[in-house]
């Protein structure tokens, strides 16, 4: 039996997991920044309506 497919499988799983682990915080960061922008927009609107 050839061992090569197992090596390929192991390294692909490793790559996928490490890639996902590295990208997850970046995706989350986008959502956080969107959140912060929304927050400051609301604040500005409130300030405008008060003045």
């Amino acid at each position, binding site marked *: 039996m050839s*061992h090569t497919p197992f090596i390929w499988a192991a390294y692909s*799983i*490793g790559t996928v997991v490490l890639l996902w682990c*590295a990208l997850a*915080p*970046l995706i989350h960061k986008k959502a*956080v920044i969107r959140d912060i922008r929304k927050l*400051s927009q609301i604040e500005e609107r409130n300030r405008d309506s008060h003045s």
Partner: protein
Amino acid sequence: MNTNATTMNKDKPRKNWLVMFIHKMGSPPWFYGFSGKLIPWLWAIFAALTIWGLYLGLVKAPADYQQGESFRIMYLHVPSAWMSMLIYTSMAIMGFIALVWRIRIMEILAMSSAPVGAAFTIIALASGSLWGRPTWGTYWVWDARLTSELVLLFLYLGVIGLYNAIDEPRKAARAACLLALVGAVNLPIIHYSVKWWNTLHQGSSISVTGGSNIDPSMLWPLLIMAFAVKFYYGANLLTRARVKLLEQDKRKGWVKKIIKERES
């Protein structure tokens, strides 16, 4: 309100330099800026070392006379298994600092470590069982290393689960840090008892690491890979910590300033 002007005691006990350094690191804008500059370098070093290590390990090194080609999984499995233990230890140390000195950045760093450690544990488990199939003829053997990696995964899942279950973020972090610390005290006991349990029940004779006399042509790529993943951990940890810091401080002035600067 009755504000009796209470004279504050100015000469506080002096803290040692390590605590001072950690406090400086604890200033969120400073940490955010500094880690932002550091991260690209860490990624670059990781990439360079990985390419070099994998080239030596997968292309240059000859096939093992005993295990054939499947030993090449070792360059992924062993560094991941080492990392999973190392990250747990580092998480527990950061958790200890966070608990004793109540330093928020340490809570964030400890909690950002957990998913990275869990990822390495999963890789160690997956690669270990893929190595087992051609070697032992089954995907899972209750081998000492795989079994303690499995228990370690449960420990990681416990920390992550507890952190996510509690609503208030600081309280959640403190609880999970304490759990990590308790787990770290138990980890050597678990490790040795599993090892001993394995010999008691006559486990397999060959393991992924093979014999003690590894050929230098096989050892070098292993060491390079083990070194490379530390930079992955560093880069990923700082990235996660930055996002968490941004999220927690979303109403604070320094975050708004950074977002404004990004826009312009």
